[in-house]
């Protein structure tokens, strides 16, 4: 199993979620993060003082999937998430040692298989 950790633009979330659902992936975990990278934040004025907003709101989408499904998912996500402008984000892929479904105690791939 692999974990896909995708750092994305917040406004893309809904669309990606829909696309994944259509591919049959319903399980995922989402969190708010702040990203820093080549995408430059804005310099704003607050009461006359400059303020550098260099931590930009991003979405982290975590998906644990079977090894065989990684490429298909990566392609789908890239397709939707890409705007071509700096700041589109990254996908990091990690090995997963094991997975357990709390409700049933199933382990391994069956823990992430839906019925």
């Amino acid at each position, binding site marked *: 199993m692999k974990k896909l950790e995708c750092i994305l633009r*917040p*406004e893309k*979330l*809904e669309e990606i979620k829909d696309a994944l659902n259509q591919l049959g992936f319903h399980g995922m975990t*989402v969190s*708010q993060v702040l990203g820093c990278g080549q995408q430059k934040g*804005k310099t*704003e*004025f*607050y009461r006359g003082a400059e303020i550098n*907003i260099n931590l930009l*709101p991003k*979405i982290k989408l975590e998906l644990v999937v079977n090894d065989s499904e990684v490429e298909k998912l990566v392609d789908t996500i890239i397709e939707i998430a890409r705007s071509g402008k700096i700041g589109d984000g990254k996908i990091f892929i990690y090995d997963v040692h094991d997975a357990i479904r709390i409700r049933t105690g199933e382990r391994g791939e069956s823990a992430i298989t839906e019925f």
Partner: protein
Amino acid sequence: MKKVNKVAFCMFATLLIIIIGSLYPARADDFIETEKVTKAIDNIWVLLSAFLVFFMQAGFAMVEAGFTRAKNASNIVMKNLMDFAIGSIAFWLVGFALMFGKDMGGFVGTSGFFLKDNFEHLQLNIPLMSFLIFQTVFAATAATIVSGAMAERTKFIAYCLYSAAISLLIYPIVGHWAWGGGWLSKMGFIDFAGSTVVHSVGGWAALIGAAMLGPRTGKYSKDGRVNAIPGHSITLAALGTFILWFGWFGFNPGSTLSGLDEKIGYIAINTNTAAAMGANAAMIFTWIKYKKPDVSMTLNGALAGLVAITAGCAAVNIIGSAIIGCLAGILVVISVEFIDKRLKIDDPVGAVSVHGVCGAFGTIMVGLFATETGLLYGGGIKQLLIQATGAAATFLWTCATIFVLFSIIKGTVGLRVSEEEEVEGLDVIEHGTTAYGDFVLKP
């Protein structure tokens, strides 16, 4: 002293005063005193009412901010502040003259620009400045209604221009018709505190504005699905509703322009009853319709009751108020859905339904429920037709002028921010700030 006695009095006055003059210096003071006292009572009543109406600006700001998203919250409160700030100046310099200057053809006032001429033709019992502040806060109420309907996507500069125009011209003209001695008032049109003059003008302007802007990004899916975009703070929206309700006790009872008028308590209870019934009706109706009592609709329901009773609060009785409020509470729910789902006009806070639809509705209801002239009290159909005429004329005038106005704005500075800007939020894009610096917000 009654007027009928005046002639007789004058005839004997000379004689009397000669006799009592040297003996009785305080006597004349005493009359002055009485007049001064009644004037003072009217004056403080009107001023305190004006202050309450001013405070409604805070109510609007909170309701509109609460019902929209956090990323646009600074922008919406800024709009609420600025429409009042711009409107106050515009109304002082020009609007007041158009509304209350000497009548020309029943259509518009023509004197008193920059407050230069006198306004004796108004025969005010209160000082002119007190009247001006009272009218200013009313004008600002009409203006501020629109910001909610156009929230989350309107360019700030466009809104500022709109603000000036409505306070300068669009509102004062309707105001002149109904309250400044214009054709509607001559006809016998009853809009005691402004269901039509204030609220419908704001509401119809909101309708045209929201329609011309188009919906917020994400409001309607390509497949026609209507997506809800929940507001960011129901507590602030509720606070705003309470503030509005509170301010309405200045709006309606204050419109007597006299604290000596015994009806002020009557008007207050009518106002309150309609608001309560509006909330009750909206709650029950949404409970049945959606299986759960909808909080934001119930808040709208209270406001709907308030808007609807504003025209007739001095003309109908408490039962009439209850019925009008109750119907308004149901109507607002239907109207919100209709505008949202059928017309596909995106009005984030329900301003069109609350102020436009329920304002017109309440105005027309006076034709049924007015205890002196209403159809249900044997007054025949005349009042009803007059009411309908006033509501229709206001609708046409407002839609037409606002359409021209927004067309000009669209063609020059532009009406709407870009989609990218909308996604990022107006706070950052338009003002370089965020409303909630310390809070983690959802995507």
